[in-house]
């Protein structure tokens, strides 16, 4: 089934972080605790999927019909900002523990390249509505996978004996690079 193939492609083969580089800021800054990373990943799945649906509809129903495509950047980012605001309010009421744990990273989902990137890509790749939905869910699940894997690895990296200069972001990036090699291996995956 083409949709299944699309899902697997966006989830693993074309992983949003390790192959497309979108969403690296929260990826590097996310807490080393696996459960916070998982919480962030799930929040992102929610935001990306909803943002994709809304931006897709707005783009085709309004922007294209009124020939206002050049307003895409402004309109999309405002939709995303509003959406994150709602998610924040929602979490504050229904999952205060997670809300506290995510802290500053929750509003930062607005500036997460992955959210806007996926929304724009849906248009560029000329996906149908269903395809864009599958792509969004697949991509964001890929983000969750990447972030949880990374949190797990970083845990171990912390105990390694490293030269001072390499500690922190430097070694995080190198580690991410090595994980990216693994994902690059999926490039020939045929379904």
């Amino acid at each position, binding site marked *: 089934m083409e949709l299944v193939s699309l899902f697997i*492609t966006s989830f693993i*083969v*074309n992983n949003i972080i390790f*192959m*497309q580089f979108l969403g690296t800021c929260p990826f590097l800054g996310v807490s080393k605790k696996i459960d916070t990373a998982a919480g962030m990943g799930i929040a992102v799945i929610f935001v990306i999927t909803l943002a994709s649906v809304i931006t897709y509809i707005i783009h085709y129903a309004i922007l294209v019909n009124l020939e206002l495509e*050049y*307003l895409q950047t*402004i309109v999309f980012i405002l939709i995303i900002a509003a959406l994150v605001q709602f998610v924040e309010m929602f979490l504050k009421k229904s999952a205060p523990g997670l809300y506290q744990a995510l802290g500053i990273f929750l509003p930062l989902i607005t500036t997460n390249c992955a959210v806007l990137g996926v929304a724009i*890509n849906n248009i*560029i*790749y*000329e996906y149908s509505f269903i395809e864009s939905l599958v792509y969004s869910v697949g991509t964001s699940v890929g983000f969750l996978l990447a972030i949880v894997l990374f949190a797990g690895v970083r845990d171990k990296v912390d105990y390694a004996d490293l030269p001072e200069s390499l500690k922190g972001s430097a070694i995080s990036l190198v580690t991410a690079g090595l994980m990216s090699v693994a994902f*690059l291996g999926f*490039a*020939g*995956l*045929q379904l």
Partner: protein
Amino acid sequence: MKNNFVKLAGILFLIAAISAGVLAWLNDTTKDLIAQNEAMASMDPAILEAVMPGSTAFMEKDADLAETIKADNSKFINLLTAVDESGNELGKVVRTLSTVKGFSGDLELYVGFTPDGQISGVSVISHSETEGVGSRVTLPAFTDQFIGRDASGEISYSDYDAVSGATYSSESFLSAVNNAIAIYTEYVK
């Protein structure tokens, strides 16, 4: 309180309106230039040379036939005639999308055919493949293998060399070539 809310919303609206206004003006000013660029993209001399050596332009001479093909083949874009600087016709060029999606969407190709039914050259017009991986299907090292092939039938997967590590992109590329071949044999020959 409500007064304050209205004031806040009003200021935001004002900023948004001014921004939209500036953008609308700029969009209008650059619209033609942008359209021209997009059209020119497929008329790059390097591409023309790669697809049909010696050609200086691709012209639309078979508008009716192109319409017929378009009705039947959703991935077909255009049928062009390659001419050299004296206006001599060198062969036909099919502009088509791939029928199998690559890593990230369709590839758009020119496939040139000599009058005796051989592929004169292939060139990618646009793609969204991964830089350094799938993008290598645009390189002569990959595309050269199609030159001189007989456009008598579909090229099978076992009959060509994919870019290692870029199977999706390569197969998408091949599907575009095959679509062009199919169109050529059915409508143009």
